[in-house]
Each structure stands twice: as C-alpha cells, then as structure tokens.
C-alpha cells in the first residue's frame, strides 16, 4: 500500500514541530509536502528580537535547514502562498498554480499583524514586526533614518523599540493604555519597567491614540499625529498592536472559524481530514501567541495524524518574560486578582524590585516579578501544579531556598552570572555555552539542555539555574511541564502518578504488562523507566511481583558500587556504626588477600573497600562474612549514631542501641531513593540527625523525630514530625513514615522532595494523627521486611552467578 499524502500549509515553528513529532512516531506513514509563503526554511521567530538588537544573525536562528527537509523526504515549496483548498477533490492550489493532493491537511498559517485603520497606514516606512522581512526593513531603516515610532507598548513593541534604540535611532513608543504591558503587568510593575527603559533613552507617550500617519516630500512616512493634536517626527513606524489569527484560507474553504480556525481537543477542524495548529487556531475559544502551548498542540496533532489517537490538548497556562537584555520581568496567570483572592506584595521602589503573588483558596493563581525573577519558574510550577501553598505561605514571597545548593559557587540567580561562570559543576558547563546551545541548536526545554550540553544531567542541582537561563534566553516560549504530570521518560507520555495508579487499579504484575497496558512507545523502555516500573511493581504488589534484575542499574544488580575504572567498591554493614575487633581483622585480611588499593572510612560510619574486581566480589563477600551495607541501593543505607547515653556524659537516651534497632528493622528496605537515618542521644546532635530522611534526637523525656532532611545536592533541614516516649514508638512512627514514602513517593524522589510535593501536613495526618493508618502502614512494612535476605549471602550461595563470571575464548 502506498503512503498517504500529508500537506502542510505554513512553514513556521508550530507546524514544523508537528512534523518533527510525527516523524518521531510514524516516520514512514506519509509523503509530506510543505508550502511556506516566506522564502526561508523554518526559523526561530522568538529570536527575531536579538537579531534586531544585533546580538544574533539570521543564520543563527534557522531551526530546520534545507538539508533537514531533504533528509526526511519532505517536498518543500518556499515562497509559494496557497490560495485555495479544494476540499472535494482534496488538493491545495498555490498562487502560482502549484497543486498538491492530500489525504490529510495540516493548516499552520500562523497570524497576521493587526494594522491600525488610520489614514497613511500604507505609506512606505510603515511596517509591522512579524518576520525576517520586517526585521531586515528595520535594520535598514536604522542605517538611513533617525526617528522611529513604535505603536504599541506590548512585548513585541518594546522589544522592537529596544532593538531600534540599540541600532542608534531615536525611539518613541506610543501606547493606548495607561501603562506598558498592561496585559502582562499591573500598574506598579509597568511604571518600574517604563522608568528603566527611559533610563536607556526610550521615550513614551502613554494613554495616546494614533490619528493619522503623515507623508513627507519623498512620499515616505514623516510624522505621526495623535488624537490630541500632538505631532512627532517619524521616519519609521512600527505597528505592534497585536496579532490576528490568519484564517483567510480556511474561511475561503468553508472551514468553520471564530477568532481562529476552530479545533477540538485533538486539533481537528470541522473537516475531519483537516487539522490545524499554531497561532491560526482557536482552541476552546483561545488563540495562543506563545510558542510553548503551540508545541503542545503540535504534539497532540502528530499523535492523531500518526494514528495513535490517544492524546488530547486541554489548553495551557502561559507565562511571560520580556527579552530585553538587562531587564528582569516575569508574569504568569491571573496577576490582577479580585475580591475573592489575596495578594502578597513586596515593593522596593528604590532597589528596583517588585513582587506580587495572587493567591486564591490556598493556591497560587498568578504573579508578577520585576527586578528579581529568579523564582519565576518555581512560582510558575506551583501555579501549574495547583499546589496547596498554605504551609509555605509565610516564606513564599522570598522564593525557593537555593541556599543549600552546591556546585555553582552559591549562585542562585542566573541573570547576574557572567558568561564564563560555571553553571554545572559536575560536567563543567558554563553559562555562556548553555546560552549558545539554546540559541544555535534551538533548544526549548530543560531536557534539551541536558541532552545537548550535559548541564544538569548528573546531580541535577543546577536544573533551576538552567531553567532560568532558558527562560531568560527564549522568554515566554519556555514552559516547564507541571511536575506532577511530567512524563516518566521519553518512552511514554504518562506521569509517575498515572503509572502508579494504573499498576494498582489494573493489578499489573510485570513490566511487560505495564508497557502493554499503557502502550509504551519503545520496545523495552530505557534506563530511566525500567528501574522506576520495577520499583512501582514491587512496592505495590510486594508478595506477587518478582524483582527483575534486567531492570536494575548495575549497582543494584551487582550489589556493589561501580567506579570510574569499572571496578567496584564493597561496603559491609556495621549496624549503627558499630564494629568488632573480629570484623576489623577480617576486613584487613580481605584487603591483603585481594590487594585492595584504597580503604576509606565513609560518611555513614563504616568502611569502604575500593577497587575490587567484579569477578572477585563473591569471594570477597564470603571472606568478609558480614551482611551487605546496601551502599549501592535505592534502599536503606545507614543509621548514623552518636555514642549516646551508653558512654556520653551528656547523653539522655541510648542512641547506639536505638540506631541498631532501627537499622535491623529496615534491613534490605527498597525505596524510591536512598534512605538515611541518624540517632543522637541529646540535642547537641552529634549524629547530624537534622539532615537525614529520618532523624531521631533523644531528649530526657523521650525522642523527637524529624523527617525530610537532606545533606546532599541540596542541603535541607529536616522538619519536626512528632515527639514520642518509648523506643517502640520510634520504630512505629519512623517505620510508618517510611512506608508512606515507599507507597507514595515517585522513583528517585528523596523524602525531602516527596514532602515538598505532598506537604508535611499530609504525612502528619496519615502517620501522626491517624493511629489506625499508622499501625496499618507499620504492619505492611514489617510484613514486607520479615523475610528480608542478605543479598550478599544469597549470591555467595549461588544466586545470579552468571552476573559475576567472565567468559573466555
């Protein structure tokens, strides 16, 4: 059977992204033909402003060059405007007579700039700001003329004004509303923006309406007259007063349009053979003008064109960031608020910082940031997630604490970093090289940055910085995925929560079954999803599911930590950090026998033997005759203790004994991520319980339990959870909390991240306040760990022996 014909009208970002998504999932389904009215291949329209400002060239912003179209066998008609769609014979006809038949038609005709209906609007020297042609015209005018007037103080108008000013023109912005960016900013922030633009030499006439444009002797525009009679010189007039979806072609073909080509949630128009995406579309009554929602639309359209038929577009929340170098401005959602919402405001006029957050029903619904936008992406995430913020309300305005982050010299604000400053301390990636990659390679998401630059791809502590850099470079085009809806990985569109829910609801018992039921897009997943699925299966159906070694990464599969030279490290368990002379002798003997090059005392109060060859692991374990320390696993690691009441003159509780009890109870506990505990015998807290997943601090009258601490990438102080009297209570509350985390945590989510997502109150309600539930959780944990076996002993006895044996020829 021959391929079907897909014709796309419009060669812009939304359309081409749809083709890219389609080629990914159904590369051979269609013969593709593309018509583009402009003479250029697909370019990054968002970056026209930097081109105008002289920071980039046209070549830099091409996203898909001619080779790309050729490589995918796409027939490209550039500079040909389609004038007619014949829906009966299913073909499109261009102005020059070129015809193309279609089985499916994709309309991506974009939008047209709105031209004010005033006399003189067609004079030479009056342009809009939409494409490469307009940009070239402005650059040319800046060389030859002096006075520029930009009509419209919106995002595009201000970026145009800034660019023209940088190119040496005298620029006045005429704006109808009383303040700039009235759709993105409230009045206070608008005034602050105006002041800082005035400091750069731009002039503003606000609350003014254009009456007419006046020609000079040459016939070119020479002046603009406003309604009150004021007249100012203008050799160039840029109209940036808004855009209108370009529906001319669709309407002429009788396809239903109302403020855009009307589509349903699958991006299908009223003609089932015709799809539409991008700025030409009206979805649920909204026409979007920012690129992020348009990309989401493209993905959905591709899914249906590719006959998958499972994806829906349900609308987008958008955010705004002005791309004027040196001005920090961010807004999102409903930032005006109303009688049923509350506001939190910080206004430091002299310092040039303004922040306003609008809250409704304990949720963030909008915000404006001026002067300090570092937390913009975080607020936007909270907004999109619809997260309950009442617990963090008192410090919400001060942003997400980045104080504990390490690896980038304490920087938390990307804007203030020099290009040479290191953003990713793991992979040595500077801010400059990230910005360069974003611009040159056309990156739009954090994942793109990780893939292309490696920044944020190891420990991830600089992910926030990378998001800031992304949002500063491409402006409102950047939209983070809602964190509770983020897909597990590239193999699926389903989120961690959806996968968990499906496993429980459908009683799925194997990775194969999950992948079949949720229609995984790759044959056997990848190194991201397989370990996650394996964990979800085991933690949901512990008695029925068998662990899959093929879905364990090497450390958990081999039960040792791989090192950079391919050897392994071995950390035997020392309960509560306690050991004996006999154990130490055996460790020393092993070190001699296997010529262990490095022996190190770990931060978890035990001993690490580094440089063991894989084929020696089993005999090393046999000779050590100690249980596994699980230093390699997403599992219980250690319970660190101080010497406690056993020896210490300040001790109030038996910290070592308590630590050993906890560690024995939790032995071999598999979890979403590693789990560390500590027990201190008094509030001096020598065991550093404040930065552990569960920290226990002995006091005279019992124990205080703290949860969600972290001493790693992001130093996070544990939060007080409960005070208990007896040793048994410590085991029950700590056990129940950890079981809750095991059942609800997303794979690779530490307790601090889990609590950030669900809220400490949630954990307290389920564990502290609900006795019945606590006992049930604790019971499930104990039942699951009752038959825990030492993985080292099992392997010494012959389990999985293939893993460790070399083959020879």
């Amino acid at each position: 059977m021959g391929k079907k014909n897909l014709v796309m009208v419009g060669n812009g970002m939304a359309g081409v992204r749809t083709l890219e998504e389609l080629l990914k999932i159904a590369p051979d389904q269609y013969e593709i033909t593309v018509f583009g009215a402009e003479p250029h291949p697909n370019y990054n329209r968002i970056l026209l402003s930097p081109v105008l400002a002289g920071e980039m060239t046209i070549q830099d912003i091409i996203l898909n060059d001619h080779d790309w179209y050729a490589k995918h066998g796409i027939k490209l008609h550039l500079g040909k405007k389609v004038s007619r769609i014949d829906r009966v014979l299913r073909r499109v006809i261009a102005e020059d007579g070129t015809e193309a038949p279609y089985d499916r038609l994709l309309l991506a005709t974009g939008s047209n700039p709105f031209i004010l209906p005033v006399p003189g609007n067609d004079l030479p020297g009056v342009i809009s700001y939409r494409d490469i042609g307009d940009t070239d015209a402005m650059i040319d005018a800046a060389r030859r003329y002096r006075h520029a007037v930009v009509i419209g103080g919106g995002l595009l108008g201000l970026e145009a004004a800034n660019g023209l000013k940088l190119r040496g023109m005298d620029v006045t912005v005429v704006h109808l509303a009383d303040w700039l960016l009235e759709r993105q900013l409230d009045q206070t922030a608008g005034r602050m923006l105006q002041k800082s633009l005035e400091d750069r030499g731009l002039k503003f006439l606000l609350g003014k309406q254009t009456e007419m444009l006046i020609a000079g002797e040459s016939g070119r525009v020479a002046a603009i007259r406003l309604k009150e009679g004021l007249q100012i010189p203008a050799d160039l007039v840029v109209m940036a007063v808004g855009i209108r979806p370009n529906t001319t072609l669709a309407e002429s073909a009788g396809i239903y349009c109302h403020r855009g080509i009307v589509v349903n949630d699958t991006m299908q128009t009223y003609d089932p053979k015709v799809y539409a995406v991008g700025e030409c579309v009206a979805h649920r009554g909204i026409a979007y003008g920012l690129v992020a929602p348009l990309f989401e639309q493209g993905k959905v359209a591709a899914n249906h064109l590719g006959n998958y038929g499972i994806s829906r577009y349900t609308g987008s929340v958008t955010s705004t960031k002005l791309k004027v170098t040196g001005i920090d401005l961010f807004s999102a959602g409903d930032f005006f608020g109303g009688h049923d919402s509350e506001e939190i405001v910080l206004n430091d006029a002299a310092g040039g910082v303004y922040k306003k957050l609008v809250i409704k029903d304990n949720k963030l619904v909008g915000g404006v940031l001026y002067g300090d936008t570092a937390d913009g992406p975080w607020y936007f995430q909270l907004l999109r997630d619809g997260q309950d913020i009442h617990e963090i309300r008192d410090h919400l305005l001060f942003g997400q604490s980045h104080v504990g982050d390490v690896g980038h010299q304490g920087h938390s604000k990307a804007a203030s970093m020099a290009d040479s400053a290191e953003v990713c301390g793991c992979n040595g990636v500077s801010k400059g090289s990230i910005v360069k990659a974003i611009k040159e390679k056309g990156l739009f998401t954090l994942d793109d940055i990780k893939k292309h630059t490696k920044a944020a791809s190891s420990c991830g502590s600089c992910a926030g910085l990378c998001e800031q850099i992304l949002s500063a470079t491409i402006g409102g085009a950047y939209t983070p995925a809602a964190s509770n809806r983020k897909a597990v990985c590239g193999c699926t569109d389903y989120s961690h929560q959806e996968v968990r829910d499906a496993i429980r609801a459908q009683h799925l018992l194997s990775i194969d079954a999950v992948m079949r039921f949720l229609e995984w897009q790759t044959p056997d997943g990848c190194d991201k999803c397989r370990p996650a699925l394996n964990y979800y299966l085991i933690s949901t159906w512990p008695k029925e599911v068998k662990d899959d070694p093929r879905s364990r990464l090497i450390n958990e599969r081999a039960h040792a930590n791989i090192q950079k030279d391919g050897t392994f490290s071995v950390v035997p368990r020392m309960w509560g950090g306690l050991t004996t002379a006999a154990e130490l002798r055996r460790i020393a003997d092993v070190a001699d026998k296997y010529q262990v090059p490095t022996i190190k005392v770990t931060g978890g109060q035990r001993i690490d033997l580094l440089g063991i060859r894989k084929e020696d692991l089993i005999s090393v374990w046999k000779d050590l005759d100690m249980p596994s320390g699980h230093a390699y696993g997403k599992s219980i690691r250690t319970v660190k203790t101080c010497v406690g009441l056993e020896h210490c003159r300040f001790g109030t509780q038996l910290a070592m004994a308590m630590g050993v009890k906890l560690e024995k109870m939790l032995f071999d506990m598999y979890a979403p991520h590693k789990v560390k505990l500590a027990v201190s015998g008094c509030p001096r807290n020598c065991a550093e319980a404040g930065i552990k997943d569960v920290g226990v601090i002995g006091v005279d009258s019992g124990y205080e339990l703290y949860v969600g601490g972290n001493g790693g990438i992001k130093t996070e102080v544990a939060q007080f959870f409960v005070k208990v009297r007896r040793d048994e209570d410590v085991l029950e509350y700590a056990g129940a909390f950890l079981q809750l985390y095991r059942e609800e945590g997303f794979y690779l989510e530490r307790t601090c991240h889990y609590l950030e997502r669900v809220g400490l109150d949630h954990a307290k309600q389920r564990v502290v306040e609900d006795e019945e539930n606590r006992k049930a959780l604790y019971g499930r944990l104990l039942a699951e760990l009752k038959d825990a076996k030492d993985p080292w002993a099992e392997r010494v006895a012959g389990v999985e022996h293939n893993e460790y044996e070399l083959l020879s020829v």
Partner: protein
Amino acid sequence: MAEWKSICELDDIPRMGSRVVRSTSGNIAIFHTSGGEVFALRDQCPHKGGPLSQGLVHGNQVTCPLHGWKLRLDTGEAVAPDEGCARRYPIRIDSGTVFLQI
C-alpha cells in the same frame, strides 16, 4: 587472522543482559536483546571508557553505566547528540552456541 571461536551457549546470556569475554586484546561485551539478537562490542564506552557490558540493555541499545551515553548495539555508534563509536565484533549463533570472531 581472525577466527570464529565458541564462547558460550545462548542461554548463558540473559535476555536484555550481557556477558563479558576476556581476550588478549581487551574485554568484549556480548549483548542479548529482548528480540533475541546477539551483538558484540568492545567493552569500552567512547566517552570515558565505561564498561558497556554493565549497562542496561533496551531495544537495540545499551546505556553506559557511568554517564548514561546510549550506544547502538548494531553499529556501535553513540545515539545523537553524543558522538563516538565502540568497535564491533562479528558474532553468530550456531545450534544454540555463540561464536565470536576475534
């Protein structure tokens, strides 16, 4: 002169798993995919020399255990945007026995 040498039975290599052959010219990783195919690559990632044999096998790819590079088992080439290549070795299966040409 390269010769075909028998190294193991097909059943000795777990599906979606691998084994390591020690040879005089260095370690060679033998992969067995979910589709039942077998491939051999030099056990060294072109990035920083990580032992590919210890990686997770998915489809016709392996993910290096050190820094997550993905390599195609059929060509030995890194998956874009990474660039690099691990040497391939000819391999065949004859009545359930795996032969490697080295």
